[in-house]
């Protein structure tokens, strides 16, 4: 794998994480991370859609008319999402029901549209495909981390398999109900962003201005 292909795939995982740095795609991260099975399927779905939408947009980037380009990107993304939804309903009906509207909402996920517009419109197909996969991987990392924390401490299981014995079943662990509610994902993502920016100081946003100390209105003799 060439150095640039590796960069395209791995840079969005930690160096430019779509959720961690670009702060995109948060909504689905809140809703589908209650358990790992659902989160994993969502990750695969989003990575597939982002990768292929990047590829297809990139393939026709030179002939897309400028004034309808957003709509054309939308059409491509929407078609991909519909097909992914249909595939899930055919082969994973239980999980598809739990994901309900969130698969359809991939269309509105900023990551997909963002990469199509920011990268695929001005880069060759293979690079775009890799960039799509890379961003999908970055998104997946965050989702799986949040999902692990929420499922482990919210239900005592991981991928449905019992890890912490629940007090109700005679064990010691009393599950934290807050982690089963969406706001908990918000807090966890916030902490992850904090952690990421502590480790990678270059991702910290610096204030564009610093407030000066109070000054008295004086006549300018000093």
């Amino acid at each position: 794998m060439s150095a640039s292909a590796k960069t395209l795939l791995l840079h969005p995982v930690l160096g430019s994480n779509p959720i961690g740095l670009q702060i995109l795609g948060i909504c689905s991260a809140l809703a589908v991370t209650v358990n790992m099975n659902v989160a994993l399927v969502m990750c695969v779905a989003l990575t597939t859609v982002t990768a292929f939408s990047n590829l297809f947009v990139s393939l026709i980037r030179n002939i897309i008319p400028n004034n309808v380009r957003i709509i054309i990107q939308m059409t491509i993304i929407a078609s991909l999402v519909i097909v992914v939804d249909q595939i899930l309903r055919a082969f994973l009906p239980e999980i598809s029901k739990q994901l309900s509207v969130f698969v359809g909402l991939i269309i509105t996920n900023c990551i997909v549209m963002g990469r199509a517009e920011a990268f695929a419109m001005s880069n060759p197909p293979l690079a775009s495909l890799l960039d799509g996969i890379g961003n999908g991987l970055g998104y997946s990392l965050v989702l799986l981390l949040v999902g692990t924390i929420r499922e482990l401490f919210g239900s005592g299981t991981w991928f449905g398999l019992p890890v912490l014995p629940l007090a109700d079943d005679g064990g010691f662990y009393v599950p934290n109900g807050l982690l089963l509610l969406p706001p908990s994902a918000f807090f966890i993502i916030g902490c992850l962003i904090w952690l990421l920016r502590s480790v990678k100081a270059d991702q910290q946003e610096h204030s564009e201005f610093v407030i000066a100390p109070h000054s008295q209105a004086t006549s300018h003799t000093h």
Partner: protein
Amino acid sequence: MSNTTDSLRNIVFVTAGVCLLCALFVSSASIALRDKQIENAKLEQQRNVLSVLGITSKNAQTVREQFATLYAQVVDLQTGEYANNITASEANVKAQLRNSEQFIQLTHTQDIAGIKKREQYATVYLLRKDGELHKIVLPIRGYGLWSTLYGYIALEKDLNTIAGVSFYQHAETPGLGGEVDNQKWKQQWVGKHIYNKQEQVAFRLVKGGVIGVDAYGVDALSGASLTSRGVESLIQFWFGNDGFGPFLQHLKQIS
């Protein structure tokens, strides 16, 4: 570059091309996957019927085997008798409700459950043990607050005691009306009676909770008066004269 890409000819050509290709892509996928999806829907329905009988396996093979032990019978709701010349697939409710000859339009006083139309044929499921009727599953539906609740109810062989209930489809408010899915609440239904000694539908949802021992009541849902009322009404309808009332009377006579 921008001259040719923004020309009218190019816009029309690219837009039409993208739409055509996307449409082809989506429709081929849809058609290729349709059979599998229909099969999933069927399995889902079988699972729903089995769930009110207390069989909760998710395994496809087990579901198919268990479902095969049930007898699906088509019932003529008007006469209350078995309609032996109609197959289960012909008794599809949605298809009947579209065919003006196969449903009756309910009058305002009849339409307690808010379903507007009632089909002519319904499919019921009998579980037999040692050649005798053991339990029976009836499909029920009625309007709650935001949506029509679709479910199944299972009765014991006395055709009065509830063996199980489940609403497999609804769009009631999660946490309020959505608590129709609460296992503990559904468990309250088991063992309750529908009809009282005067053969009237006495089953109801009690606001504020059931006090003491009540053979005909379960708790109403907290914060969900209209959904609770809807559930009570749909039970009244489907066990009344416009629902399965005639059929259950007929069944009592022949067993």
